[in-house]
């Protein structure tokens, strides 16, 4: 800070920082317009203080953070960039030895997770947990956590200490930003009316894709099950999805004997095979049925652009057009790796659904804050989501000005279940220049890709087995 602040100013700043940490959407009156209209200089001052406060309160409660801070010799945070070396690599959340999961050593896994969260897990009894679902369910039932599992391409399961409150903040932000129009104050239709929520996945479970649905049911449907539409009636099983990932990894290695999962889980192979076989058909059928049942209704639909496109093309061929209310929201994106979408994919989806705009959110399990596409096709980061763009090689923070390309890293001031700072595997191009859409917040270009996908992908051939080769083989197998 360039000049000393008066005590009153300091107190006002701290009140703001606390508000952004505790209930940012409430603080901005649940208005996407107001949240995205803060003065950038003020935002940075609040962010800096917010990160410093979080560091002070969590340093001694999260052992891994203390260890990292000690190793870096960092005692306090005066500038945002001071926090860059303290952001956790995303790999931290899968850093447990594989055997803990394979042998069902849940007490040890709990101790591992306990070192990553300020929530005290020491009193949770897990001795009788037989499956991953049991264990995650036990943690959710007896602590503020609702831990989120997500399965990776190499057969690992990432375990993230998200709290129930974290989920609620996340889905609130999704609703606020997806349903409102920038420049217009929200009315009850945007803020609280029940809307139909469509997601071609599962109803609950501890994998984050399923868990989100439980919270979206509260946020979008007012808890009314009749407003929640999922392709599958039951929850997603973390065990089953882990089995799927293990299976792909074992197949790529050419030896199914190396599956290395508990016997009881292996017995669920037929269930998994049936699900995998049925999935594409079930998802298409689901969107078609929803289109007929919810004709003219306002819906919020979330899925991948590729899936929506496939359904839309088939439906249009049969004359199904503009099936939902024009104020509906269709959120696509992701999942199209290796699938080339035609240039008119978006137009096809809009013609079928009748929605005015296809949007997309950039977010991840490790963050509570989704960043949505603006009218100019840029992902805008709400002000309490601090953006660090790191140099691809050195990991040092790039300046927060102009336009920069690097590794995306974030500190989410609202995170409860963990430290809040995360370094992703994503390459982003972020601009701190004003966006023509009118929002004052920094914004990223649409083309966000994993570094692991970019590197080696460009026609570099090697005789040494590489993760790229491995991942692509897996990707290929999963499409068979």
């Amino acid at each position, binding site marked *: 800070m360039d000049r000393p602040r008066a005590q009153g100013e300091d107190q006002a700043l701290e009140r703001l920082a606390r508000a952004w940490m505790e209930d940012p959407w409430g603080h901005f009156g649940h208005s996407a317009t107001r949240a995205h209209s803060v003065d950038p200089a003020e935002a940075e001052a609040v962010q800096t203080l917010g990160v410093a406060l979080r560091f002070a309160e969590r340093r001694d409660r999260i052992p891994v953070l203390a260890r990292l801070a000690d190793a870096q010799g960092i005692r306090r945070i005066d500038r945002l960039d001071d926090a860059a070396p303290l952001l956790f690599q*995303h790999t*931290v959340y899968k850093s447990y*030895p594989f055997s803990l999961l394979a042998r069902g050593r849940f007490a040890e896994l709990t101790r591992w997770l306990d070192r990553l969260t300020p929530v005290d897990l020491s009193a949770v009894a897990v001795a009788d947990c037989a499956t991953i679902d049991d264990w995650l369910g036990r943690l959710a039932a007896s602590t503020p956590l609702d831990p989120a599992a997500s399965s990776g391409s190499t057969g690992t399961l990432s375990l993230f200490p998200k709290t129930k409150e974290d989920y609620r903040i996340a889905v609130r932000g999704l609703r606020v930003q997806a349903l409102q129009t920038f420049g217009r104050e929200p009315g009850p239709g945007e803020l609280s009316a029940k809307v139909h929520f469509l997601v071609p996945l599962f109803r609950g479970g501890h994998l984050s894709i399923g868990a989100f649905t439980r919270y979206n049911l509260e946020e979008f449907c007012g808890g009314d099950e009749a407003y929640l539409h999922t392709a599958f009636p039951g929850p997603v099983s973390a065990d089953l999805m882990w089995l799927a990932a293990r299976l792909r990894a074992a197949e790529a290695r050419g030896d199914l004997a190396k599956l290395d999962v508990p016997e009881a889980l292996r017995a669920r192979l037929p269930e998994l095979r049936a699900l995998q076989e049925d999935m594409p058909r079930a998802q298409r059928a689901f969107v078609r049925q929803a289109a007929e049942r919810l004709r003219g209704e306002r819906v919020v639909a979330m899925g991948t652009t590729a899936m929506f496109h496939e359904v839309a093309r088939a439906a249009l061929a049969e004359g199904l057009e503009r099936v939902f209310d024009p104020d509906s929201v269709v959120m696509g994106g992701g999942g199209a790796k290796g699938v080339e979408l035609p240039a008119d994919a978006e137009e096809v989806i809009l013609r079928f659904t009748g929605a005015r705009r296809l949007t997309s959110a950039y977010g991840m399990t490790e963050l509570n804050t989704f960043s949505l596409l603006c009218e100019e096709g840029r992902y805008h980061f709400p002000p309490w989501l601090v953006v660090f763009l790191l140099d691809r090689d050195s990991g040092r923070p790039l300046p927060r000005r102009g336009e920069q390309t690097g590794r995306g890293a974030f500190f989410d001031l609202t995170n409860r279940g963990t430290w809040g700072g995360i370094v992703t595997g994503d390459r982003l191009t972020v601009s701190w220049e004003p966006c023509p859409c009118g929002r004052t917040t920094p914004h990223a270009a649409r083309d966000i890709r994993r570094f692991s996908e970019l590197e080696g992908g460009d*026609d570099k*051939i090697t*005789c*040494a087995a*590489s993760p790229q*080769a491995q991942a692509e083989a897996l990707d290929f197998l999963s499409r068979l």
Partner: protein
Amino acid sequence: MAETPILPAVIRGEAVAEPLIPFGGRGGELTFLAPDPRAIADRLPLSSPRLLADLHALRLDEILDFLEEAGKRLHLDRNPYLAEALEWSVHTAPTTRPILEGFYRTLPAMFQRERILTWIEHTLGREPLEGWVAHRIGPYSFEVRAYGSRAVHIVAGNGPTLGALTILRGAVTRSDTLIKVPSNDPFTTVAIARTLLEIDPRHPVVRHLAVAYWKGGDQAVEERLYRPACLDKICAWGGFASVKHVTRYLRPGLELIALDPKYSVGVVGPGCLADDDAIAEVARRIACDVAVGNQVGCANSRKVYVVDGVDEAALARLVRLGHAVYREMLALPETLSTRPKRYDPELAAHLEACRLLDGYYTVIGGEAGEGAVVVSHSPEAVDFADLLADRTVNLIPVERLEDFLAEVDQSTQTIGVWPPAWLEEVSHWGALAGGQRFVELGWHLQGPGLVGPQDGIEPVRRLVRWIVRERPSPEARPLWALDPDELKLLA
């Protein structure tokens, strides 16, 4: 960089440098200019296999004469093409200049007559290349001869001499060789081809060599080339990275030789870490297997299993070994190993996570991008083992040989064994598990080279077309002279 390098295509005795278009340049990578592949695609393949007649009119000795002459001209200090290629390759290669230069300096030896003859002997044998080789089964006699084929080679770029090896294989098998150079090493093979062209642009070996760059997967180019009318074989290094573009073109008449990507490991037997001297011995060997050439090759060790128990004392020995390996690795001379060109940030992130969640792993080094040793505390490899590179090795304690064998599979190429007396047992069980090459620990990177069966794939044997010629022997009776009860057709 002020200058943009030009990469000509070398097509059947002619260097072609137009029309040039730019390639590369993504993410700060080197941009280079090369002929538009769509403009030259139709000139790359050999239109008829019958045009291989000129190569087949040469005796093997004449081909070797030519290669020997080429070897004399492939000295880095005297060959301006190579000198220039090395300068540019520093920007594209995964390794550093001293290591690249070391590879370049091995080129003359690769072209030595005796060496080539020896590896021919160990793959095909010289006779079927020279003429018909007679055999006999029962009353029937037959002859076999190796004829050349038309092949495209999608070569790997992590070692700059793989293009040279491909040229040699093509020449001695009297094949028509089209080389698609990779973006991580576009320059070296073109420089070698230009050197050959200067010897004699009309020599059949030169007339049957085409080297060009196009982006792998460029359908406009590949669908014109990858057809049975143009090619008999596709030899793809690097597994999925190259094979994914190729599979769509496979059909009867077009064969795939897939040189799958591999990784290599070490295994150390019980009681081998008994004292400081023993640890130093093992560490020196592991350091070479891991770090020579900066661990960009498939033969480089990435994991070493130590079958010496999993208790605390065993772990303490393993950590001492880890420190010794780290020291030895950093002490290697720079012609063998250097600080990696760029340490993979993804791998660095995993190491960081291991360091923070201590108790599961001991991480030695790796904070300055120099390389690292990760010691597992439990009998399992790190789950990012696929990423291990840039002089990073995982040491894993296990209880029994069986625990190690469970980790061997078809992608395991070299297995370095210590002590030497254990080689017999480990190679047998390791082969059954999928391993392909067994050496003494410390010798992963030093040996006869890629001259044997190469991961069991036998690319040289598969590059030729094996032709059979049969003549009845005097005692064989024709079908028309047999009694009805003597009639039988044996498959």
